[in-house]
Protein backbone atom coordinates (compact mmCIF):
# COMPACT_ATOMS: atom_id res chain seq x y z
CA UNK A 1 0.00 0.00 0.00
CA UNK A 2 1.40 3.43 -0.94
CA UNK A 3 2.20 5.69 1.91
CA UNK A 4 0.72 9.19 1.69
CA UNK A 5 3.83 10.57 3.40
CA UNK A 6 6.04 12.54 1.04
CA UNK A 7 9.60 13.67 1.28
CA UNK A 8 10.54 17.08 -0.03
CA UNK A 9 14.16 16.66 -0.84
CA UNK A 10 15.56 18.32 -3.91
CA UNK A 11 15.17 21.95 -4.74
CA UNK A 12 12.25 21.56 -7.08
CA UNK A 13 10.28 18.83 -5.44
CA UNK A 14 7.91 21.24 -3.76
CA UNK A 15 6.27 21.33 -7.16
CA UNK A 16 5.92 17.58 -7.05
CA UNK A 17 4.52 16.95 -3.62
CA UNK A 18 2.93 13.64 -4.48
CA UNK A 19 6.24 12.00 -5.31
CA UNK A 20 6.58 8.69 -3.53
CA UNK A 21 9.68 7.95 -1.56
CA UNK A 22 10.59 5.65 1.20
CA UNK A 23 10.13 7.15 4.61
CA UNK A 24 12.91 6.14 6.94
CA UNK A 25 12.33 3.95 9.93
CA UNK A 26 13.80 6.74 12.02
CA UNK A 27 11.00 9.11 11.04
CA UNK A 28 8.41 6.51 12.01
CA UNK A 29 10.05 5.63 15.32
CA UNK A 30 10.62 9.28 16.15
CA UNK A 31 6.86 9.73 16.08
CA UNK A 32 5.08 6.46 16.82
CA UNK A 33 7.29 5.57 19.77
CA UNK A 34 7.96 8.98 21.23
CA UNK A 35 4.85 10.97 20.46
CA UNK A 36 1.15 10.37 20.08
CA UNK A 37 -1.45 10.22 22.79
CA UNK A 38 -0.08 8.59 25.89
CA UNK A 39 -2.87 7.24 28.01
CA UNK A 40 -2.44 4.19 30.10
CA UNK A 41 -3.97 1.30 28.30
CA UNK A 42 -3.91 -2.07 30.01
CA UNK A 43 -0.48 -2.58 28.48
CA UNK A 44 1.87 0.27 27.53
CA UNK A 45 5.48 0.78 26.60
CA UNK A 46 7.58 2.47 29.26
CA UNK A 47 10.22 5.11 28.64
CA UNK A 48 12.89 2.56 29.51
CA UNK A 49 11.49 0.24 26.84
CA UNK A 50 11.70 3.02 24.27
CA UNK A 51 15.34 3.58 25.18
CA UNK A 52 15.94 -0.09 24.51
CA UNK A 53 14.45 0.27 21.05
CA UNK A 54 16.74 3.20 20.28
CA UNK A 55 19.68 1.26 21.52
CA UNK A 56 18.59 -1.54 19.22
CA UNK A 57 18.26 0.88 16.32
CA UNK A 58 21.72 2.27 16.99
CA UNK A 59 23.15 -1.20 16.96
CA UNK A 60 21.21 -2.07 13.83
CA UNK A 61 22.47 0.93 11.94
CA UNK A 62 26.05 0.60 13.04
CA UNK A 63 26.38 -3.09 12.39
CA UNK A 64 23.99 -5.61 10.92
CA UNK A 65 26.28 -8.37 12.07
CA UNK A 66 26.12 -7.32 15.71
CA UNK A 67 22.36 -7.18 15.43
CA UNK A 68 22.18 -10.72 14.13
CA UNK A 69 24.12 -11.78 17.15
CA UNK A 70 21.90 -9.81 19.50
CA UNK A 71 18.72 -11.19 18.02
CA UNK A 72 19.70 -14.57 19.31
CA UNK A 73 20.56 -13.21 22.74
CA UNK A 74 18.78 -10.89 25.16
CA UNK A 75 19.76 -7.23 25.01
CA UNK A 76 20.14 -6.97 28.76
CA UNK A 77 23.93 -6.76 28.75
CA UNK A 78 23.91 -3.98 26.20
CA UNK A 79 21.12 -2.17 28.02
CA UNK A 80 23.37 -1.27 30.91
CA UNK A 81 25.29 1.03 28.67
CA UNK A 82 23.81 4.51 28.88
CA UNK A 83 22.68 5.97 25.58
Amino acid at each position, binding site marked *: *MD*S*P*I*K*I*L*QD*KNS*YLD*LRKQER*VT*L*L*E*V*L*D*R*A*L*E*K*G*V*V*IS*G*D*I*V*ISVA*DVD*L*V*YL*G*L*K*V*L*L*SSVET*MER*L*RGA*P*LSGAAEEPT
Partner: protein
Amino acid sequence: MDTEAVKKELLYLYCVTKDKPSSYNFEDLGIKTHPIYFQGTYAVVSKVSPDDFSEENLKKNLADMGWVEKNTRLHEKVIEEIMRDHAVLPFKFGTVFEKETNVEKLLRENNLEFKAVLAGLDGKEEWGLKIYCDSEYFKDALCRENERIKEKDKEITSAGKGKAYFLKKKKDEIIKDIINEKISEYTKDCFERLKITAVDTRINKILPKEVTEKKEDMVLNAVFLINNKRIKEFESVLAYLKTKYTDKGLIFDCTGPWPPYNFCGLLKGKIHNG
Protein backbone atom coordinates in the same frame (compact mmCIF):
# COMPACT_ATOMS: atom_id res chain seq x y z
CA MET B 1 -1.79 -23.75 14.75
CA ASP B 2 -1.49 -23.19 18.41
CA THR B 3 -2.44 -26.06 20.60
CA GLU B 4 -3.31 -23.94 23.60
CA ALA B 5 -7.10 -23.88 23.61
CA VAL B 6 -7.93 -20.18 23.32
CA LYS B 7 -5.28 -17.55 23.71
CA LYS B 8 -6.96 -14.40 24.83
CA GLU B 9 -6.80 -11.85 22.05
CA LEU B 10 -5.94 -8.28 22.92
CA LEU B 11 -7.16 -4.99 21.45
CA TYR B 12 -4.64 -2.67 19.86
CA LEU B 13 -5.61 1.02 19.70
CA TYR B 14 -4.41 3.02 16.67
CA CYS B 15 -6.26 6.30 16.86
CA VAL B 16 -9.44 8.10 17.85
CA THR B 17 -11.65 9.88 15.32
CA LYS B 18 -14.88 11.83 15.53
CA ASP B 19 -16.41 10.36 12.37
CA LYS B 20 -17.01 6.72 11.81
CA PRO B 21 -13.95 5.55 9.80
CA SER B 22 -14.93 4.87 6.19
CA SER B 23 -12.28 2.19 5.74
CA TYR B 24 -11.43 -0.49 8.22
CA ASN B 25 -10.24 -3.59 6.41
CA PHE B 26 -6.65 -3.07 5.25
CA GLU B 27 -6.02 -6.23 3.30
CA ASP B 28 -2.62 -5.16 2.02
CA LEU B 29 -1.47 -4.78 5.60
CA GLY B 30 -3.25 -7.88 6.83
CA ILE B 31 -5.09 -5.82 9.41
CA LYS B 32 -8.81 -5.60 10.01
CA THR B 33 -9.84 -2.85 12.38
CA HIS B 34 -13.18 -2.13 13.97
CA PRO B 35 -14.50 1.00 15.64
CA ILE B 36 -15.59 1.25 19.26
CA TYR B 37 -18.02 4.10 19.75
CA PHE B 38 -18.77 6.41 22.62
CA GLN B 39 -20.69 9.70 22.32
CA GLY B 40 -19.22 11.26 19.20
CA THR B 41 -15.83 9.53 19.29
CA TYR B 42 -14.59 6.32 17.70
CA ALA B 43 -11.60 4.31 18.85
CA VAL B 44 -10.05 2.40 15.93
CA VAL B 45 -8.80 -0.95 17.22
CA SER B 46 -7.77 -4.32 15.87
CA LYS B 47 -7.43 -7.69 17.52
CA VAL B 48 -3.82 -8.66 18.17
CA SER B 49 -2.18 -11.78 19.50
CA PRO B 50 -0.75 -11.93 23.01
CA ASP B 51 2.32 -13.48 21.33
CA ASP B 52 3.03 -9.97 20.09
CA PHE B 53 1.52 -7.68 22.67
CA SER B 54 1.07 -9.29 26.06
CA GLU B 55 3.01 -7.35 28.67
CA GLU B 56 5.69 -9.99 28.89
CA ASN B 57 6.04 -10.64 25.15
CA LEU B 58 5.96 -6.97 24.22
CA LYS B 59 9.05 -6.35 26.32
CA LYS B 60 10.86 -9.19 24.61
CA ASN B 61 9.71 -8.15 21.15
CA LEU B 62 10.95 -4.58 21.62
CA ALA B 63 14.48 -5.94 21.65
CA ASP B 64 13.94 -7.38 18.18
CA MET B 65 14.40 -4.58 15.64
CA GLY B 66 12.80 -6.63 12.89
CA TRP B 67 9.64 -6.94 14.96
CA VAL B 68 9.79 -3.27 15.95
CA GLU B 69 10.17 -2.09 12.37
CA LYS B 70 7.34 -4.27 11.05
CA ASN B 71 4.91 -3.34 13.78
CA THR B 72 5.66 0.38 14.08
CA ARG B 73 5.25 0.68 10.31
CA LEU B 74 1.90 -1.14 10.50
CA HIS B 75 0.81 1.19 13.29
CA GLU B 76 1.79 4.17 11.15
CA LYS B 77 0.22 2.86 7.94
CA VAL B 78 -3.15 2.07 9.50
CA ILE B 79 -3.33 5.59 10.92
CA GLU B 80 -2.22 7.10 7.59
CA GLU B 81 -5.00 5.24 5.79
CA ILE B 82 -7.64 6.52 8.20
CA MET B 83 -6.13 10.00 8.05
CA ARG B 84 -6.91 10.20 4.32
CA ASP B 85 -10.57 10.84 5.17
CA HIS B 86 -10.71 11.87 8.82
CA ALA B 87 -8.99 13.97 11.44
CA VAL B 88 -7.19 11.51 13.70
CA LEU B 89 -5.80 11.50 17.19
CA PRO B 90 -2.86 9.10 16.84
CA PHE B 91 -1.96 7.02 19.88
CA LYS B 92 1.50 6.00 20.89
CA PHE B 93 2.72 2.69 19.48
CA GLY B 94 1.84 -0.25 21.70
CA THR B 95 -1.29 1.02 23.46
CA VAL B 96 -3.12 -2.23 24.17
CA PHE B 97 -6.31 -3.17 26.02
CA GLU B 98 -7.59 -6.42 27.40
CA LYS B 99 -11.25 -5.89 26.58
CA GLU B 100 -13.66 -3.58 24.76
CA THR B 101 -15.16 -2.17 27.93
CA ASN B 102 -11.73 -0.80 28.88
CA VAL B 103 -11.52 1.05 25.55
CA GLU B 104 -15.02 2.43 26.11
CA LYS B 105 -13.94 3.59 29.52
CA LEU B 106 -11.03 5.47 27.94
CA LEU B 107 -13.40 7.16 25.49
CA ARG B 108 -15.86 7.99 28.27
CA GLU B 109 -13.30 9.45 30.64
CA ASN B 110 -11.68 11.63 27.97
CA ASN B 111 -14.74 12.39 25.88
CA LEU B 112 -14.66 16.19 25.99
CA GLU B 113 -10.90 16.42 25.66
CA PHE B 114 -10.74 14.05 22.69
CA LYS B 115 -13.47 16.00 20.95
CA ALA B 116 -11.80 19.34 21.61
CA VAL B 117 -8.38 18.19 20.38
CA LEU B 118 -9.90 16.57 17.29
CA ALA B 119 -11.81 19.75 16.50
CA GLY B 120 -8.54 21.69 16.72
CA LEU B 121 -6.79 19.24 14.38
CA ASP B 122 -9.52 19.16 11.75
CA GLY B 123 -8.21 20.24 8.33
CA LYS B 124 -4.61 20.44 9.55
CA GLU B 125 -1.50 18.49 8.65
CA GLU B 126 1.72 17.76 10.50
CA TRP B 127 4.93 18.40 8.54
CA GLY B 128 8.40 17.63 9.81
CA LEU B 129 11.57 19.50 8.97
CA LYS B 130 15.00 18.23 9.80
CA ILE B 131 17.90 20.45 8.79
CA TYR B 132 21.38 19.00 8.51
CA CYS B 133 24.67 20.82 8.19
CA ASP B 134 27.65 19.71 6.15
CA SER B 135 30.27 21.01 8.59
CA GLU B 136 33.25 20.89 6.25
CA TYR B 137 31.42 22.63 3.46
CA PHE B 138 30.05 25.12 5.93
CA LYS B 139 33.51 25.85 7.30
CA ASP B 140 35.02 26.31 3.83
CA ALA B 141 32.28 28.67 2.76
CA LEU B 142 32.72 30.61 5.97
CA CYS B 143 36.51 30.92 5.66
CA ARG B 144 36.13 32.30 2.16
CA GLU B 145 33.65 34.97 3.16
CA ASN B 146 34.12 35.95 6.76
CA GLU B 147 36.18 39.10 7.31
CA ARG B 148 37.21 38.24 10.85
CA ILE B 149 38.69 34.96 9.66
CA LYS B 150 40.39 36.50 6.63
CA GLU B 151 41.98 39.06 8.90
CA LYS B 152 43.35 36.29 11.14
CA ASP B 153 44.77 34.57 8.06
CA LYS B 154 46.69 37.72 7.17
CA GLU B 155 48.06 37.96 10.71
CA ILE B 156 49.18 34.34 10.58
CA THR B 157 51.01 34.76 7.26
CA SER B 158 52.93 37.76 8.51
CA ALA B 159 53.69 36.37 11.98
CA GLY B 160 56.77 34.48 13.15
CA LYS B 161 56.67 30.70 13.64
CA GLY B 162 55.82 30.63 17.34
CA LYS B 163 53.27 33.34 17.12
CA ALA B 164 51.68 31.77 14.04
CA TYR B 165 50.98 28.59 16.00
CA PHE B 166 49.24 30.58 18.71
CA LEU B 167 47.28 32.59 16.15
CA LYS B 168 46.15 29.45 14.35
CA LYS B 169 44.74 28.06 17.56
CA LYS B 170 42.98 31.33 18.13
CA LYS B 171 41.63 31.24 14.57
CA ASP B 172 40.20 27.75 15.07
CA GLU B 173 38.38 28.95 18.16
CA ILE B 174 36.97 31.90 16.27
CA ILE B 175 35.82 29.62 13.45
CA LYS B 176 34.06 27.33 15.92
CA ASP B 177 32.27 30.25 17.51
CA ILE B 178 31.24 31.75 14.19
CA ILE B 179 29.97 28.38 12.94
CA ASN B 180 27.76 27.99 16.01
CA GLU B 181 26.59 31.55 15.72
CA LYS B 182 25.77 31.23 12.02
CA ILE B 183 24.03 27.88 12.36
CA SER B 184 21.80 29.19 15.09
CA GLU B 185 21.11 32.35 13.08
CA TYR B 186 20.21 30.37 9.94
CA THR B 187 18.09 27.74 11.66
CA LYS B 188 16.28 30.40 13.65
CA ASP B 189 15.49 32.24 10.42
CA CYS B 190 14.18 29.02 8.84
CA PHE B 191 12.06 28.16 11.83
CA GLU B 192 10.62 31.65 12.28
CA ARG B 193 9.70 32.06 8.61
CA LEU B 194 7.98 28.69 8.44
CA LYS B 195 6.28 29.33 11.77
CA ILE B 196 4.38 32.23 10.22
CA THR B 197 2.57 29.77 7.93
CA ALA B 198 1.79 27.33 10.76
CA VAL B 199 -1.00 26.93 13.30
CA ASP B 200 1.40 25.45 15.83
CA THR B 201 5.01 24.30 16.03
CA ARG B 202 7.31 22.14 18.14
CA ILE B 203 11.07 21.88 18.29
CA ASN B 204 12.22 18.35 19.02
CA LYS B 205 15.56 17.10 20.23
CA ILE B 206 18.47 16.86 17.84
CA LEU B 207 19.18 13.24 16.96
CA PRO B 208 22.77 11.98 17.00
CA LYS B 209 24.56 10.73 13.88
CA GLU B 210 24.47 7.13 15.08
CA VAL B 211 20.71 7.25 14.80
CA THR B 212 20.32 9.45 11.71
CA GLU B 213 22.90 7.48 9.72
CA LYS B 214 23.96 10.68 7.96
CA LYS B 215 27.42 12.16 7.74
CA GLU B 216 26.02 15.64 8.30
CA ASP B 217 25.05 16.93 11.74
CA MET B 218 21.40 17.53 12.49
CA VAL B 219 20.98 21.19 13.42
CA LEU B 220 17.19 21.54 13.58
CA ASN B 221 14.41 19.04 14.23
CA ALA B 222 11.10 20.85 14.02
CA VAL B 223 7.47 20.03 13.33
CA PHE B 224 4.74 22.27 12.02
CA LEU B 225 0.97 21.97 12.13
CA ILE B 226 -0.29 23.49 8.90
CA ASN B 227 -3.80 24.34 7.86
CA ASN B 228 -4.32 22.37 4.66
CA LYS B 229 -5.41 25.56 2.89
CA ARG B 230 -1.97 27.05 3.56
CA ILE B 231 0.22 24.13 2.45
CA LYS B 232 1.27 25.94 -0.74
CA GLU B 233 2.43 28.86 1.35
CA PHE B 234 4.47 26.56 3.60
CA GLU B 235 6.02 24.96 0.52
CA SER B 236 6.97 28.24 -1.07
CA VAL B 237 8.63 29.50 2.12
CA LEU B 238 10.51 26.20 2.26
CA ALA B 239 11.61 26.59 -1.36
CA TYR B 240 12.81 30.11 -0.59
CA LEU B 241 14.81 28.88 2.41
CA LYS B 242 16.39 26.11 0.37
CA THR B 243 17.51 28.61 -2.24
CA LYS B 244 18.86 30.87 0.45
CA TYR B 245 20.75 28.32 2.52
CA THR B 246 21.71 25.32 0.37
CA ASP B 247 24.84 27.08 -0.89
CA LYS B 248 25.77 27.86 2.69
CA GLY B 249 25.89 24.16 3.57
CA LEU B 250 22.43 23.40 4.97
CA ILE B 251 20.48 20.35 3.83
CA PHE B 252 16.69 20.28 4.16
CA ASP B 253 14.69 17.15 4.81
CA CYS B 254 10.98 17.85 4.93
CA THR B 255 8.34 15.11 5.30
CA GLY B 256 4.59 14.99 5.58
CA PRO B 257 1.70 15.02 5.93
CA TRP B 258 2.03 12.94 9.08
CA PRO B 259 -0.64 12.01 11.58
CA PRO B 260 -0.43 14.84 14.13
CA TYR B 261 1.66 12.88 16.65
CA ASN B 262 3.34 16.04 17.88
CA PHE B 263 0.15 18.03 18.34
CA CYS B 264 -2.16 15.83 20.33
CA GLY B 265 -0.86 16.53 23.82
CA LEU B 266 -3.83 16.32 26.11
CA LEU B 267 -2.79 19.09 28.42
CA LYS B 268 -5.70 20.75 30.11
CA GLY B 269 -6.22 24.22 28.74
CA LYS B 270 -3.61 23.81 26.04
CA ILE B 271 -5.68 21.96 23.55
CA HIS B 272 -6.96 24.82 21.43
CA ASN B 273 -4.66 25.69 18.61
CA GLY B 274 -6.61 28.33 16.73
